[in-house]
């Protein structure tokens, strides 16, 4: 027999699914806007606002489920993790907004070499997709992959930083723009790892952070 709690958990999962789609859209839109020198600040901002509202709704529903049904074990782990993952999704959008703002803040960056951004953003996009898939499907194997991918992003971040310090490029705007975007991408990667850790907690009960 289906429990009343299952109906609530199903609603929560649907909300998380909606949030994940918006978060993913924010990040890809922001990266594309940076690479193609387009303005997406307002669009990403509105989506980020939408995510913040959804996060509040997720928190409300999660707390209501805890109050009403006092869930335990895997139910409790899933519901409490939704609160944390909803925050991670908001962080994705927040960093996407920061990326979208770089062009506005630094002016014309159309001529900058953005190869490193393409390289890192491909990995981070893949991490984003994997973390969302892992969460929506409670897929622990996919969640585990994220740690190695994050190491790769961290390594590229360090190498890029070192390259920028020694760069002969006199256009400081390009250096600053790329540095900021790489930093935001690196933070998005960190949050995908947090989501992966929560997937592992939901499935196995093992706390990673």
């Amino acid at each position, binding site marked *: 027999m289906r429990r009343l*709690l299952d109906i609530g958990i199903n609603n929560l999962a649907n909300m998380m699914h909606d949030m994940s789609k918006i978060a993913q859209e924010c990040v890809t839109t922001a990266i594309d806007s940076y690479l193609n020198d387009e303005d997406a600040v307002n669009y990403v901002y509105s989506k980020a606002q939408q995510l913040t509202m959804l996060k509040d709704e997720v928190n409300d529903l999660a707390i209501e489920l805890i109050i009403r049904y006092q869930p*335990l*074990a895997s139910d409790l*782990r899933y519901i409490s993790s939704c609160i944390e993952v909803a925050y991670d999704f908001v962080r994705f959008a927040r960093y996407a907004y920061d990326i979208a703002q770089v062009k506005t803040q630094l002016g014309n960056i159309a001529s900058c070499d953005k190869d490193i951004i393409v390289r890192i953003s491909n990995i981070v996009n893949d991490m984003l997709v994997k973390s969302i898939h892992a969460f929506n499907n409670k897929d622990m194997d996919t969640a585990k992959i994220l740690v190695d991918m994050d190491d790769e992003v961290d390594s590229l971040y360090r190498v890029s930083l070192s390259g920028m310090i020694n760069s002969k490029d006199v256009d400081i705007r390009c250096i600053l723009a790329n540095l900021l975007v790489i930093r935001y991408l690196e933070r998005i990667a960190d949050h995908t790892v947090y989501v992966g850790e929560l997937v592992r907690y939901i499935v196995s009960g093992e706390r990673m952070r």
Partner: protein
Amino acid sequence: MVRLWSYRDNGATEEYNNSYNDDYYIDTKVILASKGLGVIYGNKYAIMDVNIKIPKYSVTAIIGPSGCGKSTLIRCFNRMNDLLDAKVEGQVILNGVDIYSIDDVVEVRRRVGMVFQKPNPFPMSIYDNVAFGLRINGFKGDMDEQVEWALKEAVLWDEVKDRLDDNAYTLSGGQQQRLCIARALAIEPDVLLMDEPTASLDPIASTRIEQLITRLKERVTIIIITHNIQQAARISDYVGVMMIDDRLVGRLVEFGTTREVFENPKNKLTEDYISGRFG
């Protein structure tokens, strides 16, 4: 909630794991243990092969569906099953002594008190209810002082100090239950068994009993049976989960700290039971 658990769980898991000595007789952190414990009514096992270690000065909740042998188990802990036509196998070790190997059952029940689901005060005054156990145990000290102490321990003194001669039946249900706890505490047991002590009480009276239990564990080890999972989560330090197997025999399927069992149970049966997926 997590913070509260973390506080209560402060070192408990580590301490318990460290104390998990194979020798049931010399483990000083364990006050009561059973080893290969089984109870047979007629020719049928009610519970079988129960191995459990109850840490000192803690609250251990025994949970499980109706008919899984929870009451049968705790009634072994003070040999209450002797009063029934039951055969007990295995050992119950209290402070290093197998209670089934000794003749003095009265002493066992003095060391291990019991409180039942329905308050069962004796048809006598409030004072005499508490003094009753002391008298039959030949208490030689100051009776008034001991009665007052027990009533204070049970957080009942302020409500009854001016009416100690009133009949115990004039008390409310919650007060009667606290009187029964005072009666059990008066003889200063090492272990207090509680078989669904709040099942017949309203939420306010239940809350008072729960507060009392968490306070009492500083001086007495408490083992409580409850069907209220949330109550077990609120007040216990450790949880034992009992289930019936395919032969309808009660088994202890899981034991651990409250947080472990309720956050990340190891046994699928526990997970299903505490999550309400049973049946």
